[in-house]
Structures are given as structure tokens and as C-alpha cells.
């Protein structure tokens, strides 16, 4: 479940992505999305519908297999009654193209917290979860992640207006050239340099410092949480699977028993069901983990913005320093007082004074330089302020989005747990009824549930309609909609 939110209070256009491919329903992942309409998203529905394998030659002319993703777009017009929606426009993209798009956005909008891509390789794997990039479950989760990325970009008040984004969604062939033409590559190099540079800013902006600190801490804590969760998943998997051994043993045992045989057989069957249940349960939990991962990766984007700001501030400070130095130099030349050591000064002292002409020449040059410097600083300052203003708008937007998304993630996690508990509880009630004759029960503590067991049994035999107040629910897949208890 994800949200792309512009944070604007304008009219809400709700677009639901109801494309459920066989791959999706197979893996029981339903991508429900509610967006507030922005420029791009009001115009079109976007989805990453499928994944497919391709082979081709890579950059070193070797055959490789890679996955491509089908992007579908469709104008967001209301469908006439009884009419079928227009066929979507489609194109195929591979992961590296998504990466390219994102890099472009990073350098072009350094003051925006750019949405992250799903992980390139499976990390935080636990026991049964595959680390193979070509594994269908991994590909499916990545498909969802890529769709999420596109929807976040398309609903962003700034990013959604970018032409390159539009072309990414609409121009399969010519897109790479278009990106190259923007000349963003130059900025990439300088950005990389700036990210790795160790900057020391004299007067760091408190707000940005605070944000960077928060981002670092958030990164650490989510990382830790994901690791522990993976270990917990591993352990709970073990518990369920060992119960499967009961299934086998009970079944074998039932063969030698007469009176108890049926009970054991039935119990064995329930234990098998129990052991199998964990696969779906944990598959669904991966979805929750993915939601956390998105925000883990978001912290990198936040950090990026903070660093960019640091860089601008650093440049500003350097420019100011430079200006001060030049001014001092000029003053010295003008007054003749040597306050600053300079090689020129030394050599002229040693090898004779320069002429008045020369001196005036130099002063003039310095004045020119100073003026240029002041202009540069004004520009830089304006740039900085603009950066701060734009960045901070986006940061506020991001904070709201984060709080909302994560809160919903936690709620859906709770719903998952509830659904799981109900499912398994019912299983154990069935197990109990394997050994207990219909009108007697050893289950003293759950006598209030006995009517449930009885009604289940009787309703199964068709003896009595299931009462509306029964607490038990038929076994079905876990629900993720908010309204369902």
C-alpha cells in the first residue's frame, strides 16, 4: 500500500490502480493506491504491469539475461458507462533505465528529495527468501517497487513537470538520447565529487544539520529493524515448519490405531496445513518490509539534499573569504602597508619596487576582480536562498508523506498480525475438534468458543445456518484493506 501525495490542498482526483496481473494475484500482492492529483497524474494512469526476461549483448559484448518491465499509461478520462477503457500505451524499460532517470533527477533537482528505487539486489534475506535477482518473487516485488517509484515521481509537484519524466513514460526508443542531450552528465561528475568531498562549513545551518542528523539516525534504526525482522521471520518459519513433522508422524501413527486413528489422521492434516500457512504469512510480511525499505532508501535522498546545501554554503563561504582577501590586498596596495604576505610583495621588495603604473594596474585589476566577486556572491547567495526555500518546501511535504505512509504501514502490519492470529486460531480449534467428540470438550478455558466449534462443525454438515455473530471466519487469504477487521 503506498501513497503519492503532493501535499496540496487542491481538489482530489482519486485514481485507483486496479490492474491486477496474474503474477500479482499469484503472489497475493494488491497494489492499492490513492493519489491526490497533480499535473501528470491527473492526466494519466501509470502502472508497471508486467515483467519479462530478455537476452541481449551488454556493453562488453557478452550475452546476458535481464528483466524488462512493461510500463502502461492511459489517459485518465472517465470511462463511459458500459464502455471499455481505451487500450493503454505501453513500453518496456529495464532497471538500468530507471536508474538513469533517477540520476538525472538527482542532479537536476538537487533540492528535492528524490524517491528511491527498489533495491537492486535482494538484501535482508532470511532463510527461504531468495537472493536470486531472477527469482520470480523478487522480480514481482521489484515490479511493485518500480511502479511505486513512478507514481511518486508522477505525483510530485515539481518532478512531475519534467519533460524527461514524461518522455520516460512515453518514448521507448529516443529517451536515452533525450537524457544525454540535457547535458546532465556534467553535473553528475561534479555532484559525485561534492558528495565525496569532506566539507567544513563555518556556520552550518541548524535546520539542515538537524535534518541530516535525523536522517542518519533513521537510517540506522530502520536498518536494525529490518535485520531483526528478518531474523524473527527466520525463527517463526522454523517453528511452523517443525510442526509439519507432527503431520507426518500422526499420519503414520493413525495406521496402527483403531479408535484413535481418525482423530490422529485429522490432526496430522491440520498440522500440515499449519506448517504450510507460514509461507503466505511471511510473503505478505515482505510487503511490509518493502515499505520500510523505501523509507530507508529515502534517507539517502534526504542526506543528498543536505549535502548539496552544505556544498552551496561552502562555496558561498569560500567566495566570501576570497572576496575579503582580495579587498585586503587592494587596501594594502593602496596604502602601501604590507599586512599580507605575498610573493609579489616580497619579490618587489627584494628586486625593487614596482612602478606606480604597475601598482595602479594591479589595483584596477583587483577592483575588477572584487566587483566580479561581489556579483558572484550575490548570485550564489540568491542561489542558496532559492535552494533553501525550495528544499524546505519539499522537506515539509516529505515529512507529512512519511508520517502518513509509515503510520499506515504500521496499521497494515497490525492487520496482518490479526489476520494471521485468526487464521491459526481457527486451525487449532479444528485440531481440537479432531480429538473431541461433538458434544463434549476438554477445552475448559475456551468454552465460550465451543459454540463456534460446534457451529462450524454443524454448518459444515449443513445442519444449522452459520449465525452472524460467530467469531470464526472461513479460512481465506489475509486482508489488507483498512476497513476490514
Amino acid at each position, binding site marked *: 500500500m503506498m501513497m503519492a501525495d503532493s501535499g496540496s490542498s487542491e481538489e482530489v482526483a482519486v485514481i485507483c490502480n486496479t490492474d491486477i496481473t496474474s503474477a500479482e494475484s499469484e503472489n497475493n500482492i494488491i497494489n492499492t493506491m490513492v493519489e491526490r492529483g497533480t499535473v501528470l497524474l491527473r492526466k494519466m494512469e501509470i502502472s508497471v504491469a508486467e515483467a519479462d526476461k530478455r537476452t541481449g549483448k551488454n556493453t562488453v559484448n557478452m550475452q546476458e539475461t535481464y528483466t524488462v518491465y512493461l510500463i502502461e499509461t492511459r489517459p485518465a478520462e472517465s470511462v463511459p458507462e458500459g464502455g471499455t477503457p481505451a487500450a493503454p500505451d505501453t513500453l518496456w524499460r529495464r532497471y538500468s533505465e530507471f536508474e538513469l532517470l533517477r540520476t538525472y533527477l538527482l542532479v537536476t533537482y538537487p533540492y528535492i528529495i528524490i524517491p528511491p528505487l527498489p533495491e537492486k539486489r535482494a538484501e535482508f534475506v532470511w532463510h527461504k527468501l531468495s537472493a536470486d535477482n531472477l527469482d520470480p518473487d523478487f522480480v514481482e516485488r521489484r515490479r511493485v517497487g518500480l511502479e511505486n517509484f513512478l507514481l511518486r515521481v508522477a505525483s510530485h509537484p515539481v518532478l512531475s513537470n519534467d519533460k524527461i519524466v514524461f518522455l520516460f513514460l512515453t518514448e521507448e526508443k529516443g529517451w536515452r538520447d533525450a537524457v544525454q542531450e540535457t547535458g546532465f552528465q556534467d553535473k553528475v561528475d561534479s555532484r559525485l565529487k561534492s558528495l565525496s568531498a569532506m566539507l567544513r562549513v563555518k556556520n552550518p545551518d541548524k535546520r539542515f544539520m538537524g535534518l541530516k542528523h535525523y536522517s542518519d539516525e533513521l537510517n540506522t534504526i530502520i536498518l536494525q529493524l529490518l535485520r531483526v525482522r528478518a531474523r524473527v521471520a527466520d525463527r517463526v518459519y522454523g517453528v511452523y515448519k517443525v510442526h509439519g513433522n507432527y503431520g507426518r508422524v500422526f499420519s503414520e501413527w493413525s495406521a496402527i490405531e483403531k479408535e484413535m486413528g481418525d482423530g490422529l489422521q485429522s490432526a496430522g492434516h491440520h498440522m500440515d496445513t499449519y506448517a504450510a500457512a507460514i509461507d503466505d504469512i511471511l510473503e505478505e510480511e515482505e510487503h511490509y518490509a518493502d515499505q520500510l525499505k523505501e523509507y530507508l532508501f529515502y534517507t539517502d535522498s534526504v542526506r543528498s539534499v543536505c549535502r548539496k546545501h552544505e556544498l552551496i554554503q561552502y562555496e558561498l563561504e569560500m567566495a566570501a573569504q576570497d572576496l575579503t582577501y582580495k579587498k585586503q590586498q587592494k587596501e594594502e596596495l593602496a596604502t602601501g602597508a604590507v599586512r599580507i604576505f605575498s610573493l609579489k610583495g616580497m619579490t618587489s621588495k627584494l628586486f625593487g619596487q614596482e612602478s606606480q603604473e604597475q601598482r595602479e594596474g594591479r589595483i584596477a585589476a583587483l577592483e575588477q576582480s572584487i566587483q566580479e566577486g561581489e556579483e558572484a556572491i550575490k548570485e550564489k547567495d540568491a542561489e542558496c536562498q532559492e535552494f533553501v526555500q525550495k528544499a524546505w518546501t519539499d522537506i515539509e511535504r516529505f515529512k507529512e508523506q512519511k508520517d502518513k505512509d509509515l503510520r499506515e504501514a504500521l496499521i497494515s502490519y*497490525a492487520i496482518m498480525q490479526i489476520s494471521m492470529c485468526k487464521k491459526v486460531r481457527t486451525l487449532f480449534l479444528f485440531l481440537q475438534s479432531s480429538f473431541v467428540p461433538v458434544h463434549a470438550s476438554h477445552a475448559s478455558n475456551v468454552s465460550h468458543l465451543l459454540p463456534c466449534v460446534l457451529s462450524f462443525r454443524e454448518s459444515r454438515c449443513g445442519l444449522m445456518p452459520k449465525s452472524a455473530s460467530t467469531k470464526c471466519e472461513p479460512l481465506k487469504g489475509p486482508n489488507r484493506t483498512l476497513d476490514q477487521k
Partner: protein
Amino acid sequence: MSGHTVPADISDHMLDLDEDEDLEVYSKNTTLADGGTMPNSPGSMVNQYQLEEDEEDHQDVKTKDIFVCVDNPESHITAIETFITYRVVTKTSRSEFDSSEYEVHRRYQDFVWLRSRLEENYPTLIVHPLPEKFVMKGMVERFNDDFIETRRKALHRFLNKICEHPVLSYSQHFKAFLTAQDLGPYKKQGPGFLSRMGETMRAVAISVRGLRTKPEEFTVMQEYIDHFSTKICSVDKVTQRIIKEQKEYMDELKQYSPSYLQWAELEEELAEPLKGVGNCIERCSKETEDQIQHLSEVLLPTLHEYVLCADTLKAVMRRRDNIQAEYEVKNEALVSRRVEQEGLQEEVEDLAGRVEQANSALRGDWTLWRNVMRTDLKSAFVSAADRNVEYYEKCLAVWESFLLSQRGESVEQTDWEHGS
């Protein structure tokens, strides 16, 4: 309850004995302490059986007239050793007992003595096993509190199983065990070491020789016992493994919850739901702990006892086979050298009778045991399933209350957004 018979007390043939008058068990006088007659021929046995059955029809099977409780483990330290004694309290309305209440103190050795006596006197009855002398797993020490408590419960169950047995509960040794302040004099009686050795060697010789014809019903029984033994051992192992996995799961859960709480400290709006989730996980972890405890204290001990029962059953089958083998040996001797001792003929007839008695006793007790086994194991499984239901119910409630708190909030938020 059908099929149980009067015990065939054939111990006087099994063992070379000191002829001690006090032990009517060993005397050839076949009167029981309460004045009833003990049959020593199949014919009279049948009559007795019918009598018993009639009596039973008037009796509610579930009415117990003897109750035993084992509690109060106490440590005793002497110069030579340290040991634990348990208080054994008996309440009974049986006329064989002079009083209606008794209190004695017994140590593990005394229980062992009782059981071996019962096995000797009733070789083809199925006597419930005792908890093991040592526990081989890991770091359990003899005087560890958990160990003592587990043992106490098992000893309690042991004595109550005897109480519930229609034959064993009338044993004189059982009565002595429950009532005598000092068991010393009773312990001195009984076969000495050498006679026990002799018995063992004869048994080995016989088992090497093999049986001529084993009755079909006992072959079937043997097969069942072998299968049952394997299965119950497997169930026991699986249960142990589950407990182990649950413990490891719980350890991880203990680290999971703090992560959410740590995160909550970083956040403002998110702090409350994060704390909520952290608390839920903590509470579920506590429930898991209780769950593990129940498995360890209820299901596992029951399963373990039946693992030991399987061994007991095998021993009973061996003893029955030995009795039959002994008869066959003597019978062959009789058949081959007709001119032999006159005594041999009589001896062989006696042995034949013993075989019949042994078989009947086992037949009856077998049915009894199977019923009890089914009841015990079903009850244990049902109880474990019940506990699981409870566990998931509680976890469910924990998460639902969290959800409720969040929904309440979101309802408030929506109201605020719409300015209502």
C-alpha cells in the same frame, strides 16, 4: 470396562525365594489379605472374572476410593549423601486400610523399590513407569528446582496410576509403601541378588532358544508395541524440537520490540504508533513465553511418560514370552523322557497354568492400558491445542486494541481535516 482379570501371581515359580512367612505374596497359601481367594487355575479364574465383572456393573468406574498426593519435596543432608524426600499423603475408604488417612515420607529409591516389587509380583501387568533417574539433557542437575518439580509431578502421576489400577492398587507392597513409617523391614524381604542373577540368566537362555509358537494375538500386540514405540518417540522428539524453536523465536522477539521503541524516540507524529507496535510485540513475546512453559510442563511430560511406557510394554512382552518359554522347555523335557521324575508332570501342569494366567492378565491389562493411553494422549493434545488457541486469542486481542487506538486517531484526524 471389560476384560480385566484377577492377577496371576506366579512369582513363587519365577524366583528362588527365602520362605518368609510375612510375605503372603510368596506363600503358597493363595488367600489375599482381604480374605478373597486367588485362583490358580484357569477354571476358577473364569469364575472370578465373572464375579469381578458383576461387581463392576454396580460400580461407577470413575469413582476412586483411594487418593494419593505427592508434595513437599525436602532436602536431606547426611554425612554420606544428599537426597530429596517427598511427602506422600493417602486418603482412602478401603477396608483393607486400618485408617482413612496416612502420611509418610519417601525418597526416589523407595518408589523404585515399589515398582520393582509390582513388576515381580505381576509380571504381565503393565506398571506405569517412573521418571528417569537422571536427565541426560544439558545442564539439568539433580537438585535443580525445575527438575525436582518435574519429578514430583511424575511421581504423583505414578502413584495415582497405581491407585486407578483395579489389581495393582490392592498390592500389599503398595499398601506398605503408602502406610509404613519405615519401609526398612519390607525392603529386606524379597529375592536377593544371586536369585535375581539366576533369573536373568535363565531369561537370556530362553530368549536365545526362542519360542515354539507364539499366539497370534501376542504377535499382533508385539507389532503394535514396536510401531507405537517408534511413533511416540518421534512425537516426543518433534515436541522437544518445537520447544527449542519457540525459545529461539522468543529470543529474537525480545530484540525486535526495542527497535520500534528506539525509533519512536526519533519521531514526533510517528512516535505513538511506533510505541504501540513495540508494545504489542513485547506482549506477544510474553505470551510466547507462557506458551513454551505449558508445552514443557504439560504436553512434553505426558509424551515422555508414554515413551517410557513403550519400554515397559516391551519388558512385559519379554516376561510373558519367558513364562511361555519356561513351560515349553519343561514340557519338551517331559515329552522326550517319559520315564522321568513324577514331579515333572506336575511341574509342567503348573507351568501351563501359569502361562494361561499370564496371558489372561496381559490380555485384560492390555485393553485397560490402551484405553488409558488414548485418554491421556488425547487429553494432552487437546490441552495443547487449547493452549494454542488461547495464545492466538491473546495475541489477537493485543493487536486489535492497537488497531482500535489508531483508528480512533485517524477518525479524529479526518474530522479535523474536514473542519468538523
